[in-house]
């Protein structure tokens, strides 16, 4: 996981970066909010960011808001805000600005790493869900299904398709659904057809021209 660390205080970025690098994270450092936002807006931006609350020009919550506003296309990095100990009332505002978590400065290394691993867990879940949704969407596009209003001829029972052609109902069904049709004959039709056949044979007696 790549992590962005943004703080205008270099003691803070030093502690963050060194702690995270020791834990084998790939760390990028920004020294203010504008720089942080630029990095988060790049293609292939870090998926997790630790942002100081108070930075000149663009503060942490502003960066969160902007990242969330940009993230329409399913990009949802995990954002952790850094606040000082007496700014707890700001936490609500920070979370409302789009942060996922917060960390009180000066932090304990163990707590920092634990919160980062929570972020990793959420990111992994998110990624899993996104992959599943994509899979389902692909499957859905392949599923043929019949729904909505079908225009059907009252007499011959032909069905009009979207492209304005009339199809025999059996052809239409096998094209538009996964149903397989096995052709047969129902008793009323059998009775009607055999009567018609008898009638035809009566009117057209077979020519007995074949002789051996």
């Amino acid at each position, binding site marked *: 996981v790549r992590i962005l660390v943004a703080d205008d205080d270099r*003691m*803070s970025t030093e502690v963050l970066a060194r702690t995270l690098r020791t834990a084998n994270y790939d760390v990028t450092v920004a020294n203010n909010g504008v720089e942080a936002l630029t990095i988060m807006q790049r293609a292939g931006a870090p998926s997790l960011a630790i942002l100081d609350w108070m930075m000149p020009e663009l503060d942490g919550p502003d960066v969160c808001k902007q990242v969330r506003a940009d993230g329409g296309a399913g990009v949802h990095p995990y954002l952790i805000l850094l606040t000082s100990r*007496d700014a707890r009332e700001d936490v609500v505002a920070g979370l409302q600005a789009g942060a996922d978590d917060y960390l009180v400065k000066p932090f304990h*290394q163990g707590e920092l790493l634990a919160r980062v691993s929570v972020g990793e867990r959420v990111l992994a879940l998110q990624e899993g869900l996104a992959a599943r949704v994509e899979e389902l969407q692909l499957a859905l596009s392949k599923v043929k299904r019949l729904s909505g209003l079908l225009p059907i001829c009252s007499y011959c029972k032909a069905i009009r398709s979207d492209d304005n052609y009339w199809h025999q109902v059996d052809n239409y069904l096998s094209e538009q659904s996964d149903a397989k049709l096995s052709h047969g004959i129902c008793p009323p039709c059998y009775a009607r057809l055999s009567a018609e056949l008898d009638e035809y044979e009566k009117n057209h007696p077979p020519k007995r021209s074949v002789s051996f």
Partner: protein
Amino acid sequence: MKIPTSARHLDIADMRRRLGDDEALIADLLGLFLEDCAARMQAISAAVASGQLDAVRRGAHQLKGSAANLAAGGAVEAAGTLESMAERGEADAIDAQFARLTLEVEQLVAELRDQPAERP
């Protein structure tokens, strides 16, 4: 940077707890604090002199954050008070509070440089 063995103005034990006994990191943080401290104090001083409360608030906040990294309780508290005063617009009290902060920071810096400041 040498880590002071016994310090009254900062809590080395707290730093060790928070930073997993990473002596090199602790030493580097102390060094960074010393490097940045004078410039931060000058910025606050200039803001106090020109009555720019917002700059006083920002500078005091930054210094508070730096000092908090060293668990330097006295400096953190003095900077925090100065920050709130600037935020509330208490211009009259700011000079005196800045003087308190200066004293705290001087004692802290002296201790870090291993030249004990005169005992109060």
